[in-house]
């Protein structure tokens, strides 16, 4: 992309809108776009309806997953309640041919991607590191070290470009993780190699307990793109219409060969970092309730209802599907998976080393002895 120089000598085309892009306000009303913002069209009612339905299901599965920790079925669960617009919207803007690079928090994004919730939760249940086939779903394993997967996304996006496809990569990251070195290496690599990757920062305001103010002095995380020559945008991450619209622009930008795109979505993590965290130690209940008023689900539901795209029956239908999917997840998570101890030695290498064969024989003998006693 050609960049033009603004009077200050800044590559103006790369700069995000001065305020987060918002198309629907918290009351579900269309927002008059400010003069200085980039222009984005409101997505079609059909897509917004699909996003709303995905969010209803996503939230229900998320709440169900947290409940599963209380029943001891999941070792731990990092909720993304409140971040539905980001997780569902971003995924709905890419296709099956595109790649996705999630973190531990992206369960909802994985559900939306069409990956079986049980396979999605395998990591958190504790029976395997990744429950799905990353190649079949073009979705990397959920990444636990912060920011490392962003470089993989840059590499995969560049690989696709080298293969001559128009596939893009969507990589998720949190606000705290933008401080990690790999975030910067990933932006730089992606820009230098013009790799079609979309870095989607969910600024949910906290890295476990550390607020953004102690994390970064940047005026917005989206501004971090400009130093690398990466086109950036900031959005209201609780506005599903803004997420879809800006994601569409980012995908089009990347697919067309213009290189990476950075999106900062301003959102909020309604629950604690994980079920094991006590959020009351670092934030007030007033702050939490203020964000309830910005709920991404209700605002879209209002807009859809007011504009005649959704009625009581439609709402009931979606809620029923969400309930059924949650019940199905609960049922299938209700059994203790059998984990085969001998599988410990599988998949360390394509062929086990002699040392692994020896250790395998040792464990096999131990199990044999145990079974006989």
């Amino acid at each position, binding site marked *: 992309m050609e960049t033009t120089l603004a009077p200050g000598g800044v590559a103006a085309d790369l700069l995000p809108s001065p305020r987060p892009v918002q198309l629907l306000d918290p009351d579900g009303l269309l927002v008059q776009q400010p003069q200085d913002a980039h222009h984005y069209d409101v997505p079609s009612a059909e897509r917004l309806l699909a996003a709303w339905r995905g969010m209803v299901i996503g939230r229900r599965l998320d709440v169900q997953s947290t409940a599963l920790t209380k029943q001891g079925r999941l070792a731990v669960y990092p909720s993304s309640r409140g971040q539905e617009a980001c997780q569902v919207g971003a995924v709905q803007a890419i296709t099956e041919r595109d*790649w996705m690079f999630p973190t531990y928090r992206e369960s909802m994004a994985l559900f939306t991607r069409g990956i079986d919730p049980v396979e999605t939760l395998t990591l958190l249940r504790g029976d*395997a*590191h*990744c429950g799905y*086939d*990353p*190649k*079949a779903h073009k979705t*990397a*394993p959920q990444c636990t*070290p912060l920011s*490392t997967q*962003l*470089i*993989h*996304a*840059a*590499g*995969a*996006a*560049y*690989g*696709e470009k*080298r*293969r001559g496809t128009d596939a893009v*990569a969507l990589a998720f990251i949190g606000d705290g993780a933008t401080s990690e*070195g*790999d975030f910067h*290496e*990933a932006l*730089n*690599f992606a820009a*230098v*190699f013009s790799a079609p990757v979309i870095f989607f920062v969910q600024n949910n305001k906290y890295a476990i307990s550390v607020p953004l103010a102690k994390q970064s002095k940047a005026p917005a995380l989206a501004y971090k793109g400009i130093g690398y020559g990466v086109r950036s945008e900031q959005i209201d991450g609780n506005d599903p219409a803004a997420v879809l619209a800006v994601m569409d622009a980012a995908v089009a930008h990347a697919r067309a060969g213009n290189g990476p795109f950075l999106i900062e979505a301003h959102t909020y993590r309604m629950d604690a970092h994980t079920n094991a965290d006590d959020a009351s130690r670092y934030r007030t209940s007033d702050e939490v309730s203020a964000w309830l008023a910005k709920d991404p689900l209700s605002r879209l539901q209002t807009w859809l209802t007011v504009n005649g795209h959704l009625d009581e029956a439609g709402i009931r239908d979606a809620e029923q599907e969400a309930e059924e999917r949650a019940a199905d997840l609960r049922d299938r998570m209700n059994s203790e998976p059998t984990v085969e101890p001998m599988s410990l030695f*599988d*998949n*360390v*290498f*394509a062929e086990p*080393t*002699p*040392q692994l064969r020896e250790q395998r024989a040792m464990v096999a003998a131990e199990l044999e002895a145990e079974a006989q006693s």
Partner: protein
Amino acid sequence: MTITMGNALNRALRDAIAEDDDVLMFGEDVGTLGGVFRITDGLTAEFGEDRCFDTPLAESGIVGFAIGMCLTGFRPVVEMQFDAFAYPAFEQITSHVAKTRNRTGGKVNLPMVIRVPYAGGIGGVEHHCDSSEGYYAHTPGLKVVTPSNPADAYSLLREAIADPDPVIFMEPKVLYWSKAELELPVTTEPFGRAAVRRKGTDVTLVTYGPSVPTALKAAEAAESEGCSVEVIDLRTIVPFDDDTVVESVRRTGRCVVVSEAQSFAGVAGEVASRVSERCFHSLEAPVLRVSGLDIPYPAPKLEHAYLPGVERILDAIARLQWDDVPDLSHAGAPA
């Protein structure tokens, strides 16, 4: 034809890139310059920027980018400029490169090669002479390879590139200019087979990489004193060839492990304990280590005092010959 180890590595890369469209090489200065050691010399000129290219100066980025490219079917070979400068990529290597096959239940493999020029003996400044093989060998999921001559350098690098698993390919810098009469291509033994570089009956020296020529010199010197020394070159540290080592030590009854790395918690200690466990009844003396010192690699003018040389090896051999209990006060920290 006279070939250096550097030539052999260069030719291995050239042949691999020519034979397989998915093989590519990238890293810092590997393009126009051909790498600081010229191992990638001429590759960009011959195959174009798509097949051998310079990246930003960012080791984590280089390795992470290679992981992503593996996902789309490429077989990247990356160069870390020097041993100690691979450390910024350590997180990618240990958290992802080594674990991805396992994490994904075998669904994703990462057939990449990380080339690391390593170890000392070239008068390099700080951070250019580390023996970092222990870090990698300690990490399950990585193969760790280190050639000691041009023929192995060619063959093992070709095998590393063809391997379905990630390979840390440790290149002993001091041997880049070592020569052999050789026609390429050549195939030596596959991963996991140690080579007996010299036959002997009294003592087994187990070594690898940069220490192989030193061990051979020591063996020759010992021979003139009437002690017959067998020298084993491991070639691959992971997988490890227990069989060759055990067979030899059971025959000789005595073993010295020679490695340039620090001894504490290192590869030499691993070899020594494996030998002790497997050859206990054949051993006539404890297994000794002759290693680098447990200090950060010293300034160039002091490296002669750091590097395990012929004298220290001979001294260890001498201690093994005693019939009474050997003086082990210096074992591990060579006298």
